[in-house]
């Protein structure tokens, strides 16, 4: 990515279906920005029974220069039993200087979760990206994706994150890119990127088959259970 293309502050919220890869995309985005020498804050807003979360990654991400706003699992009693408790500083995360990446969990309320963040409604620069994996049965077709994204509330762009875990191949990602592209056209939204796991990235280059930028994903979340 060309650093000049980035706005002064990158403010992005990652939203989408359960297990669509929101957190993975948010984590990788935060690291990508940090590696460019930018100040980055990554925010845990995953409120519906999160089990793969940023919590266990806090230290690792901290070492790489990303400030993570999330509880430590061990410092909260009964996470999952009591629901996720909103960490107070999360409410004021947009007041952190520099880039802010928000990882928003799934749930019936979609992008309304941002109502919990001070200034989110007024912040013009905040972009909300819906992460789509066509292997998720409820976002498997163009029509389903359109319905799903409309149910989320405000969305500013789509990210094709189609994969099958370890069984992923390029064909599948390509299939995803096409379906997401068609859905985006109906929704009048841009496709921000196609995300590709690092093992497959070398065979793809900087853009995918349809000219969408490629983001390389290193998988952190399998190590981030509870």
């Amino acid at each position, binding site marked *: 990515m060309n650093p000049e293309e980035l706005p002064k502050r990158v403010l992005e919220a990652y939203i989408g279906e*359960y*297990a669509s890869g929101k957190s993975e995309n948010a984590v990788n985005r935060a690291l990508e920005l940090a590696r460019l020498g930018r100040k980055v804050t990554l925010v845990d807003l995953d409120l*519906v029974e999160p*089990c793969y979360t940023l919590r266990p990654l806090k230290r690792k991400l901290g070492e790489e220069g990303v400030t993570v706003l999330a509880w430590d699992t061990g410092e909260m009693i009964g996470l*999952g039993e009591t629901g996720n408790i909103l960490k107070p500083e999360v409410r004021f995360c947009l007041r952190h200087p520099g880039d802010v990446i928000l990882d928003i969990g799934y749930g019936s309320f979609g992008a309304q979760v941002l109502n919990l963040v001070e200034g989110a409604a007024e912040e013009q620069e905040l972009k909300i990206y819906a992460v789509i994996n066509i*292997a998720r*049965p409820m976002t*498997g077709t163009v029509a389903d994706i359109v319905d799903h994204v409309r149910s989320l509330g405000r969305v500013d762009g789509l990210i094709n994150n189609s994969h099958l875990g370890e069984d992923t191949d390029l064909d599948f990602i390509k299939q995803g890119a096409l379906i997401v592209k068609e859905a985006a056209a109906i929704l009048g939204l841009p496709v921000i990127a196609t995300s590709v796991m690092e093992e497959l990235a070398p065979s793809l280059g900087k853009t995918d088959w349809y000219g969408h930028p490629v983001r390389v994903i290193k998988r952190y979340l399998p190590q981030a259970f509870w």
Partner: protein
Amino acid sequence: MGIIEGEKKAFMTGNEAVAWAALVAGAEIMYGYPITPQNEIMQYWTRLAPKHGRKFLQTEDELSAGFTTIGGVLTGKRAFTATAGPGNVLMQEPMSMAEAMRIPTVVVVQQRGGPSTATVIYSQQEVTLTCFGGNGEGLRVVYSTSSHQELYDYTIKAFNTAWKYRFPTFVLADGYQAKMRESLVLYDPEERGIEMVPTEPFVGKPGMPGEDRPPAHLRNTYNIEEELEEVLKKDIQEYEQMAPEIIEYDEFNTDGADVLVIAHGVVFRSAAMAVRKLADEGLKVGYFRPITLRPFPQEQLRQAAAKAKQLMVVESAYGQLLKLVKDNLYGMDLPIHTHLRPGVGVTPEEVVADLRTVLEGRED
């Protein structure tokens, strides 16, 4: 028209796999009460159900979830519920009624840490409870799954086992399986040639009761010991007769194994990886995995054990599978090593290390 056309590869959590499986199996209603880590079963069922004309009722607790499920089944509907941990404790009361009255309920259990509230995360500590909970003889079927594909396959199968044999049937998984994401193949059972066992109402059949047909008078209370014994004898006999038809297990390299590893559920995956790694090195290790914990594959385990020099039981509990194993190997003289981690996951590396210790004769 099928809900799923052809074979569909999907990437999802185990909880979702259960919801989809119940949907394609023709489950008509779910009753449930929230508890981690099974919540997404309800959350996905409630997202899917209205599109397919299915129903859901959120009850006031797991007692009610279990008893309303019984009510649904009594009307001849494929009804199910899901629970975990302390919820599974409460679920034992309704399931003992289902056991007593041969009501084909289906319950999915996502084990969490215990005893008490403990952790919402994971364990294999609900084996004894799920197999033998309630004040009875454990006349139930318990499938222990180890992957998302199995969660899908066995949830479908659970409805058929329950309705064919009329014993309450459990799919026993855990918080890891509930929440992990992996790919699996979704399919319509019919397209695979799996015929769903037809259901039948216990109450509300057509006709005037007492005239066109006898009224259903269903009870679980008896007056005298012998009356109860007669009912139980028949149930136990039918259970034992059914057992060989539904027992499932998996085994590998059992012939002349220096160590035969016994594990179930998600721990089996770690155990199998460890065993295969050492077997590849030429070491004589094998595994035996009970898929049905109730009824237990007794004969099959005894045959495998007879060919082995020693055993190693691996589980995320402090001896619940071990107890089943010992019961079923009664009379066989065989050293049993253990790797017991109550409420904690087991990695292949740990099993490899323990196996090496045993194989090299550095006793634990």
